């Protein structure tokens, strides 16, 4: 398995050269969904079919034998086709899911930029939703009070902040969600294809914020389908396909390989 050999020696050499710590480690990680071959949603149906010996469960491995080490301060790219397992991997690091197999170790405070506006309720105002969303991210009331002005400034929503969210355009909700989620000072940032949200000026602001995080020394995992973003921002990257890591290495190398496989 050449990918693992590359990974090991690269890991060792990075450690030797820089003495940097691994902040994210995935050791032989697997994520398995048990899917019934037919949809059985009711208890009654389940019992009947069970009785008839007809339930067949299929194992779907969203991730399989994943070994990955990410170092402090790195900007790490994660690329691969749709359904490859990228989001699942991010969710493992964000503690949303536990691995079925293997071990996940994460050192530091994690800010997930995975789903914006999670928990947004349409009947509540922008202001109320900011506090709700902040609570979901694990912040306390005091922390949210402190952050409130900055968040609304970034989202440029002062005129609408006391209006129910149902009256917001999708762009406005997205900006609000993004603003709440990125007003953080994390050690680790996980970013799932968010840079395509909003109009140009907002995208520019997002990009600036991302670079600011990187310059502050945060560790960042970035998932994107836009190769230019990956090559511009990232140092190293990993290619995932069908739940397996195909390649880990310097970003240009990995992107090349991915482009190559796409053109087959």
């Amino acid at each position: 398995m050449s990918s693992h050999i590359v990974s090991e020696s690269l890991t060792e050499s990075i450690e030797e050269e820089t003495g940097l710590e691994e902040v994210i480690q995935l050791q032989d990680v697997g994520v398995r969904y048990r899917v019934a071959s037919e949809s059985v949603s009711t208890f009654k149906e389940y019992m009947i079919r069970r009785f008839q010996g007809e339930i067949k469960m299929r194992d779907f491995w969203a991730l399989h034998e994943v070994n990955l080490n990410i170092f402090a301060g790195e900007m790490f790219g994660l690329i691969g086709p749709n359904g490859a397992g990228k989001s699942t991997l991010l969710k493992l690091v964000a503690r949303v899911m536990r691995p079925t197999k293997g071990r996940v170790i994460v050192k530091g405070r994690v800010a997930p930029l995975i789903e914006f506006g999670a928990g947004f309720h349409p009947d509540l105002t922008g202001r109320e939703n900011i506090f709700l969303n902040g609570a979901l991210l694990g912040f306390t009331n005091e922390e949210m009070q402190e952050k409130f002005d900055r968040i609304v400034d970034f989202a440029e929503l002062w005129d609408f902040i006391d209006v129910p969210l149902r009256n917001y355009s999708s762009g406005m909700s997205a900006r609000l969600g993004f603003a709440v989620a990125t007003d953080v000072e994390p050690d680790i940032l996980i970013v799932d294809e968010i840079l395509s949200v909003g109009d140009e000026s907002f995208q520019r602001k997002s990009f600036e914020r991302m670079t600011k995080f990187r310059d502050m020394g945060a560790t960042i995992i970035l998932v994107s389908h836009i190769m230019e973003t990956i090559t511009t921002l990232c140092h190293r990257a990993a290619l995932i396909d069908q739940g397996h890591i195909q390649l880990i290495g310097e970003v240009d190398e990995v992107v090349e390989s991915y482009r190559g496989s796409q053109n087959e």
Partner: protein
Amino acid sequence: MKDTNQTPIYDSARQGTAAWDELQAIIKYRYLIVQFVRRDILTRYKRSSLGVAWTMLNPLGTMLILTLVFSRAFGGSQEGYAAYVLSGLIAWNFFAQSTNAAMLHLVWGGSLLRKIYIPRTSFAVSALGTGLINLLLSLIPLVIVMLIIRVPIRWTIIFIPIPILFLAMFALGIGLLVSAMAMYYADVAEMYQIGLTAWMYLSPVIWSPEILPELYRSWIIRLNPMYYLIELFRMPIYYGEVPDLSLVLISAGIATFTLFVGWMYFTGRSDEFAYRV
């Protein structure tokens, strides 16, 4: 950056007891519970014209109907049947609504668990919080009704937090149990709602224990945990008596046991929820 002395480390292999971890997590996320309860109450208030008043009007309306129709059949020798029914209804509604909401929040809002990490018990605990607020609000019409029909309100009313605490513990335990089961089978939600209705009729909410024939009395009563909890609730308010120690101890035992079982069952399975939603 945050000071490194406090760098949190997550290691999926090192799992303490899920139950204990979850308890610590829920305490850490207490502000989230406040926000959830706030959201429940605010959205209810915003949608209807009467809003918060419905919390009080609903049991009041049910009580009026039940009193008009049934006071002679079920009231037995109860004085102030209206207040008897209302006090029972308030306790019952608290239990039924909290457990039902816990289940529905998890089933419908569970997709949230797939997007962001929050303690799995958040939904059940916040459902309980909302239920508690509704319970406290509905004590107001109870007191008013008691004043109107001249059922004496005694100083013993200060004991009311005790039965409320036990009811809350019991409701949380049951809520965690049914919501965990509902994650696996969609029709648990339906079955539970039907079960709740049957359970209510088996509990001394609208009828008084003395109208039961001797034969059934011990069966229905002794085996039904809600009997003890509801009677304990009525003691300080409706009967105006200091709660009897054995009743308190039995209720405490029921509440603690149910909460323990529910919590253990739920936290034992909660890792799988993110896979199942």
